[in-house]
């Protein structure tokens, strides 16, 4: 337990070589991860990638077979859940239906033996911080989904945990409320300077919330980095696909150029140094420039399909070797190219990533 009051510095969370199997399948496959004090890190990945198991291991509900979890250098991996200073916001909120909001928020303080007067003060603070002071006497069944989430959040922060754990915190909210709550959570976490770990499968949520993103797949962390890094420079095919990179083309590397059939991109970072002769050329739809057919240096292609995306038009283009790529183009008042139209395609080398994994 940290001392009460503001200005509490966030704690550092270190996960080292954590392993957990369910049956023969690894749920966590030697995961190592460091969360700097006060940072918000998201565990991003598809369902079944081990992100929730990893979070439950940090909270103490899952006992790992190997590895360590340390808070500010102190190992907590052997402690039962109730002796860890982690507060978890459950996906289903887990509010106690037989207690009112005050009872729910005060539960953690009561279990930790905080005296009545201090308990009341801290409950009041937490309710004000989450803007639900007027709901203090309500029961969970009398609250909307958004209000329930605020109660769960108040219940989690009121104990001033070292580590805040949030399991798909916005999954049950509708789109408009979700974005609102994401911003609010981020502001609250920053003002408290509490180290936080968020589990999500939503890349937009991860990009918006995080200081750092750990992309997980099959129990492993595939990439750990800042949102812009993960978005712009995915480290693996999986990360690229999961972060919504539309075009992943098998390419051969010759003389520092990446050749995906007729599409040749010169000067891609790493192409000259690569140890292998082949790689995956990854680029987003907006990195593709569509030019007039036959323009110098462009690869010939034709339009297969087009669809409006508001301010842009998304094209499906077939290259000469029948591989298709997706290209998005700002809608600058011109006509939408109709299927069958011959075009030239060029891809910006700076917007490309070469993936060998």
């Amino acid at each position, binding site marked *: 337990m940290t001392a009460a009051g503001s200005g509490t510095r966030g704690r550092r969370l270190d996960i080292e070589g954590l392993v957990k199997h369910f049956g023969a399948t690894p749920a966590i496959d030697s995961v190592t991860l460091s969360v700097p004090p006060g940072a918000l890190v998201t565990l991003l990945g598809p369902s079944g990638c081990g992100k929730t198991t990893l979070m439950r291991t940090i*909270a*103490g*509900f899952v006992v790992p077979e190997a590895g360590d979890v340390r808070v500010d250098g102190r190992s907590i991996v052997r402690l*039962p*859940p*109730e002796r860890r200073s*982690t*507060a*978890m916001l*459950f996906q*289903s909120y*887990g*509010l*106690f*239906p*037989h207690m009112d909001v005050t009872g729910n928020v005060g*539960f*953690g303080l009561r*279990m*930790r033996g905080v005296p009545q007067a201090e308990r009341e003060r801290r409950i009041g603070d937490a309710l004000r911080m989450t803007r639900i002071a007027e709901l203090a006497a309500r*029961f*969970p*069944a*009398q609250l909307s989904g958004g209000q329930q989430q605020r109660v769960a959040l108040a*219940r989690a922060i009121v*104990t001033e945990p070292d580590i805040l754990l949030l399991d798909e915190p916005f999954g049950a909210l509708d789109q408009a409320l979700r974005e609102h709550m994401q911003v609010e959570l981020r502001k609250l976490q920053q003002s408290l300077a509490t180290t936080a770990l968020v589990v999500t499968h939503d890349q937009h949520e991860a990009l918006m919330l995080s200081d750092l993103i750990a992309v997980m797949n099959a129990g492993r962390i595939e990439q750990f980095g800042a949102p812009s890094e993960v978005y712009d420079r995915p480290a693996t095919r999986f990360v690229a696909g999961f972060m919504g990179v539309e075009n992943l083309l098998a390419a051969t590397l010759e003389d520092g150029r990446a050749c995906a059939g007729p599409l040749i991109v010169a000067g891609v970072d790493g192409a000259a140094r690569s140890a292998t002769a082949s790689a995956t050329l990854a680029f987003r739809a907006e990195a593709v420039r569509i030019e007039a057919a036959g323009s110098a240096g462009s690869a010939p292609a034709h339009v297969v399909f087009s669809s409006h995306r508001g301010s842009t038009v998304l094209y499906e283009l077939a290259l000469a070797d029948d591989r298709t790529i997706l290209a998005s183009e700002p809608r600058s008042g011109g006509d939408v190219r109709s299927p069958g139209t011959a075009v030239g395609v060029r891809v910006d080398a700076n917007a490309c990533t070469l993936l060998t994994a």
Partner: protein
Amino acid sequence: MSADERRPWLLLLPALLTLLVFAVAFAMFVSVSLRTQVAGSAVFAGAATFGNYRAALASPAVQDAAWNTVRLAGEMTLLTALLGYPLAYVVARSPSPLFRRGVLFGLVLTLLSGGVTRAYAWLVLLGNRGLVNQALAAIGLPTVRLVHNETGVVIGVVHFLLPFFVLTLLAALRGIPVALEDAARNLGASRWRAFVHVFLPLSIPGLIAAASLSFAGALSAFLFPELLGGGRVRMAANLIYERIVTDYNLPRVAAMAALFLVLALAALAMLAILQRALARRFAPAAEAA
């Protein structure tokens, strides 16, 4: 009203007819209880009178049986709950489906085996020369009387009630999300305090429902007191049976039976009121809707 709107009522017809038959039978039963039997015959005569009820209320045998019935049913229900709650809890929270199915299979098997068979099985086990006493004698301990007394009756009835109690309670316990206990532990509650502060309160409506069912079953116990009580344990049904067989005074026995029925209904009504009050206290979710 169109034919379509009427149709649901047709589905209720068999149930309503069955209820009607019972209502008619019960009305006849009550009307008989108000008559007087001509001595030495099977003829009812005279004007309607509460004389049979007065006689039954004044009878020490009826008073004893009434008290015994309520007391024993209470003891049996308490014992069933003490054995059944941990069993239901372990089954509800067991991570192993094999274990869960095994226990449920055992309980259902108990339900399927007949009462008489089970009563004789208990005699074999618990009798004065039964397996339990043979074992006690073999290790040099004094033998104990386990049947032909209240102990035997309580054992038999509790064993009979246990599956009803556990299956009823289990349905309620499985409705309590595991996430609530996880949340409690995450907030600093030990396993035990998570149980006391979260699981137990939320299980109370289900516990009362299961206990009510068990209590109703215990109140109407007949077979086990008859076969394992050795004629010493008289519960309501046994007294009624004994009086019909010995006196054959139907109006008298009908009045006695009606009184026991009122007693049973009153006891169950009290449990229902308790259940409602506790449901309001421990599960406000239902009230808010």
